[in-house]
């Protein structure tokens, strides 16, 4: 079945440093979505990417979808303490009718 790998599992940064998490799928994707989960909370939808090579920005967050539509990344510039949480990708395989979530990257930010 489809597998979605996400790295790193954990990332500890100093406030102001950049952060990147990577998502890799074993199959070609129709789309990829990104979610953020604050500690003790539920996942919240951030964005969906659909096109090969697509890049989208949300303030300090930059999302990319690979040319082959099998990988994606989320980059946060100049992290803040409010960025703390776990970031998940979810890939919808071309062959499947539902998305598969990666295991998430947990970001901690030291003030």
């Amino acid at each position: 079945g489809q597998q979605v790998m996400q790295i790193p599992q954990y990332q500890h940064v100093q406030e102001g440093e950049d952060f990147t998490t990577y998502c890799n799928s074993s199959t070609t994707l129709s789309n990829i979505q990104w979610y953020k989960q604050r500690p003790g909370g539920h996942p919240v939808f951030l964005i969906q990417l659909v096109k090969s090579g697509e890049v989208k920005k949300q303030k300090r967050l930059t999302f990319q979808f690979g040319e082959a539509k099998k990988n994606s990344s989320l980059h946060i510039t100049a992290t803040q303490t409010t960025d703390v949480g776990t970031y998940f990708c979810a890939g919808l395989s071309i062959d499947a009718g539902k998305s598969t979530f990666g295991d998430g990257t947990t970001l901690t930010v030291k003030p």
Partner: protein
Amino acid sequence: DAGITQSPRHKVTETGTPVTLRCHQTENHRYMYWYRQDPGHGLRLIHYSYGVKDTDKGEVSDGYSVSRSKTEDFLLTLESATSSQTSVYFCAISIGARGYTFGSGTRLTVV
């Protein structure tokens, strides 16, 4: 978020007892999902529904059953709870390009 509520929020139950978790939505969405979240495993799909009385298994469906007799309600039943089913359970609805909207979760402890 999109009128989705889960009940109960917390539950402690004994091994071998049946448990039912409820998910209720107010916006008439067709697709509903049950996920479990465990440390290091991200979100794993248990069952999903694509309409009243239409359900299908996810990747970790053993020991769980679901029912959807009304569009707004999606029930998850643990037929005979085991300690391995101690987890946080999230219900979600799918809103197309706006991704999944998750409920606040049910923290279930099986002792």
